[in-house]
């Protein structure tokens, strides 16, 4: 177990299906959560025993991260001080809409969770939440080389002028507000 928890080469890539997190199919991870080591680890985090905190406490070793699901409120409510992404290069967020008003607030915390990712080169953000606009996401736009955004609740192309390192980009937008206004704002 020590090998697992101390090796920086492990856990570099995370694909998290958040909705099925409780039954997540990562045998090693499950065993860690159930182990005494993990319990000790959680106690080091103080009051936080939630698996999400246990996972994000290792965010500093992630190179690639994919978050997918319809309920990202737990991640959105993470204390920013617990999540660090110094070597994260690839980020994918696939957020699906579920008509549940009680699930409509805390997930917004995810919008600025990745604002400080000094190594981030590739971002793929897709959601069908009409309430999400591209302006709401805080990413290190200027350093992105690849960008895929599908965000219906606003003009996704607003950030393009800031993406001076882009090599490849796919943009999806709804013609609700003119590009013109976004470029001028």
């Amino acid at each position, binding site marked *: 177990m020590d090998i697992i928890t101390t090796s920086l080469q492990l856990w570099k890539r995370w694909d998290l299906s958040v909705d099925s997190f409780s039954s997540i199919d990562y045998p090693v991870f499950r065993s860690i959560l159930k182990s005494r080591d993990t319990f000790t680890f959680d106690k080091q985090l103080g009051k936080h025993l939630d698996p999400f905190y246990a996972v994000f406490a290792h965010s500093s070793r992630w190179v690639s991260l994919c978050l997918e699901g319809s309920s990202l409120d737990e991640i959105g409510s993470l204390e920013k001080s617990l999540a660090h992404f110094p070597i994260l290069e690839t980020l994918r967020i696939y957020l699906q809409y579920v008509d549940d008003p009680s699930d409509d607030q805390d997930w917004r915390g995810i919008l600025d969770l990745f604002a400080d990712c000094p190594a981030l080169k590739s971002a793929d953000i897709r959601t069908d939440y009409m309430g999400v606009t591209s302006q709401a996401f805080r990413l290190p736009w200027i350093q992105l080389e690849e960008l895929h955004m599908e965000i*219906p609740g606003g003009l996704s192309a607003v950030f393009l*002028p800031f*993406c001076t390192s882009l090599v490849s980009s*796919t943009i*999806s*937008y709804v*013609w609700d507000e003119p590009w013109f206004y976004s470029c001028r704002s």
Partner: protein
Amino acid sequence: MNHGSIPAALEKLESLQILLSQNNPSRLVPIPFRYLTLPKLQTLTLTDSLFKISWRHRDFLQFIARSQCSIKEI
């Protein structure tokens, strides 16, 4: 940063794909060439399931002239 009508210059962008959708299917969707300068652009893809894409041809020609790009695929 671009805070006016000056086209945004993305010096490294080689591939741009724009997927269009709209809430009001009766309206044409303009492609914003007049707000971009893409000197390295090689591939430009525009996708619209409603066939409502439109652009001012003059804007497109100015975009090509301004960008000095060599588009290989459109």
